């Protein structure tokens, strides 16, 4: 009787132990399957949201948009509006505060290669609003990155001192762009002259091209001691693929330099600010900084159309911090405001002995000089991030749109 009872007890205990072990094993398999299912759903959602964003022009009129989308309303398929992209509140660079206006500016580019794109935040759409308009606020986080497919790197060769030499390297995502046609524009200015030259060349087998502005085939440009400033823009094309790059010779003169802020996207108002705030001029800044600003519309044929900016401030074209002229307001003319283009600002300091020149460029529309845009949250530290990518066009420049999506509700199956 006792042995039978013990037999029962042992067998029941062994059975229960085995049962628990197997339940755990099955549970593990089921949990993993559910997680996989959720991850797959996230990937599908990511692909859908990316298409929704890229294939919908959205509604950008008014201060509060009623739908979010980046498609160019004048084109079909995956062609994006250069202006909608410009109005995404950038999450790539630190926000910029300009204490002379008391406003914050979205920082798409702060002086990268002498290019600035700082748009007042009230003219931008922020991450929270975009999340709400996409219907994912509180449930998913996302980051949208729009980067040029072709990287056109332009570097000034400092080893050459008697003239300007530019080294251009053209790289695709997976390989260099060999034999690509390079159309370029160069604007330059110094104390005696200022000019614009357009020309064409080709990259070699490794996607490289060298340009010597030494007075032989190309005009002589001397940049030593900041005696000449220039803005160089190159458009590369091969087999239907197009990219663009730029370099502007931004120098910090003894009187500082100039930073363009887009004060109002709607009105096309640009503040040409004497270095201050984040761009503090410092004690070394002396005297007035003269400048000239010209807007160019850049159509698909890469032939810039000059358009004189309107002088809103009035008076001479100079900024002087000590004389309470910290910035100067200009306006892009209304007829040019709906066209993608760029503003070239040439500034100089002069005294009895020397001139110092500098130049900055500000694109009007993403894609004109090949800037990238990063918009949304930060995917770092998230448990699982799904990504998807599309090839898109901004104007006729090839870009890649990458969308990263993660869940804000967690993926826990138990507990």
């Amino acid at each position, binding site marked *: 009787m006792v042995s039978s009872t013990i037999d029962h007890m042992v067998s029941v205990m062994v059975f229960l132990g085995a*049962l628990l072990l197997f339940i755990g094993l*099955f549970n593990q398999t089921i949990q993993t399957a559910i997680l996989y299912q959720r991850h797959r759903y996230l990937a599908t959602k990511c*692909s859908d949201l990316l298409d929704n964003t890229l294939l919908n022009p959205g509604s950008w009129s008014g201060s509060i948009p009623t739908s979010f989308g980046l498609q160019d309303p004048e084109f079909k*398929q995956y062609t994006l509006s250069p202006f909608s992209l410009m109005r995404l509140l950038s999450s790539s660079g630190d926000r910029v505060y300009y204490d002379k206006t008391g406003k914050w500016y979205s920082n798409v580019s702060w002086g990268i290669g002498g290019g600035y794109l700082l748009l007042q935040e009230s003219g931008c759409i922020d991450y929270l609003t975009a999340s709400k308009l996409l219907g994912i606020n509180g449930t998913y986080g996302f980051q949208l990155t729009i980067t040029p*497919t072709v990287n056109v790197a332009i570097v000034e060769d400092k080893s050459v001192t008697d003239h300007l030499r530019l080294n251009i390297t053209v790289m695709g995502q*997976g390989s260099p762009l060999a034999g690509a046609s390079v159309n370029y524009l160069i604007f330059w200015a110094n104390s005696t002259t200022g000019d614009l030259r357009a020309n064409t060349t080709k990259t070699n087998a490794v996607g490289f091209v060298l340009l010597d502005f030494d007075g032989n085939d190309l005009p002589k440009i001397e940049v030593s001691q900041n005696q000449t400033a220039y803005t160089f823009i190159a458009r590369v094309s091969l*087999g239907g693929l197009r990219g663009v790059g730029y370099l502007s010779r931004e120098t910090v003169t003894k009187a500082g330099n100039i930073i363009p802020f887009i004060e109002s996207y709607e009105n096309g108002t640009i503040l040409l600010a004497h270095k201050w705030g984040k761009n503090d001029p410092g004690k070394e800044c002396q005297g007035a900084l003269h400048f000239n600003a010209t807007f160019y519309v850049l159509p698909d044929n890469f032939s810039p159309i000059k358009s004189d900016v309107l002088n809103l401030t009035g008076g001479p074209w100079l900024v002087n911090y000590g004389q309470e002229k910290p910035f100067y307001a200009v306006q892009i003319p209304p007829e040019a405001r709906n066209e993608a283009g760029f503003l070239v600002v040439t500034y100089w300091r002069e005294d009895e002995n020397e001139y110092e020149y500098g130049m900055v460029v500000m694109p009007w529309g993403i894609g004109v000089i090949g800037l990238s845009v990063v918009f949304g949250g930060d995917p770092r530290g998230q448990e699982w991030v799904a990504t998807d990518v599309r090839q898109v*066009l901004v104007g*006729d420049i090839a870009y890649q749109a990458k969308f990263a999506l993660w869940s804000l509700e967690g993926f826990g199956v138990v507990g």
Partner: protein
Amino acid sequence: MMRTIEVLLVIIIILGASMIASFFAVLPSPREVSPLNLRRLAFTTLQVLDVNYSLSRIVFMSPNDPAWNELQIALSACLPPNIIYNLTVYEVQSGNATELYRFKMSISNAESLGIASDAASYLVASSNVTFHVIPEKIGTSGVGGTLYILNCSDARGWWIAGYTAQSLAQDLKNLLEPYFKTTVMVQNTTDFGKILNNNTLQGEVVQNAVVINTFGEAVPIPTEYCKPPYSNGNYANYSYFLGQQVRRYNWTWASIVGYPFYYVSNTISLKDSQNGYGIYGMIKVDKPGMNAFLQGLDNEQYTPSSASVVGDVGVVQLSPQVLDSCNYYGIYPSPNQTSTRAIQKSILSTYPNLTVGLLIFDEKSGCYPGALYNHRNGTKIEGSLLALGLTRTPDIRLTAIGLLSYFKPRLYASEYTAANATRLVVLQLGLVGGV
């Protein structure tokens, strides 16, 4: 002891079940769980490469052309390094070919695309091919099909400021000629007199024709009608006669702008008369003109009437039906216009046989700013009037879209099967590296 053996047996059974379940419950690899949408990536890559039709140009080139190398470099450059590809071009066969697609060329950066790949296809057409839209001809399935455009050199227009009747006539011809079996420019009032008497000018069918008066508020008058009884009532009787002829031949008379039948014009027979504003060769009929026309159209006894039948209603909007037609026919006048001569709705009670066949503009303030009216005899239509009571200057696209919206000729897209003119580009992408 027996119990323990039984339990062991049960454990063996459950273990077996667990192993079998694990064997069949194969979980996908992480790459399959959260995949890149390679199909979309391939499609957008092809679209980017076809910007400015570059891809369309290259795929029609000979396989030895250096442009293929350029395409391969561009393709490699625009795809991430971990993506391998195969781009294949097929010629689309037409006619009685046994195979629909014939291989032409392929470029790739890998021997195989692995087990997880996806593809997108893109159809491109040669730049040598032009595509046509062939419109259905009005009158093809019935009677009529003639378009008369009054282009009389011996008449003057009114309320068409900024244009001449002749320039308007030419624009209308360009717009509407494809939609009619025959288009006849009526070059002078003598020819106009001929068609008013059912005589053809170029062998066309007079019955059921559309007559567009490009002279605005003035109507050309042939010399033989510049006398009594047509000149009675300041030529209102001539308008009555026009109404009768429109009914008799079942014409659709189109007045492109302003107050219809307000003047008559003939620069030869009426050369000594002026319309009150110093324009010679023109006589002001005034308001009785429109009333007389409607009486003629309605087959009533002519009774002189100076009552105004129009109103000033300001800004008006194209009707939804006409807006749809704008998209269909690709004619886009401004949807908002100003109407100062909108015909009052009350004419439908004055002339009970008159019905609205098409509202070109939405009704406003009891008026029809633009409409096509049918005179009905029972169910049969006997004559129509298209009246656009807009202010000057005229937009002849409104007349064109009004007529097309009413007659609804269909548009036939030409076939997309021109021989050797179409190629199918298939881009297949695969992922390498990772798991």
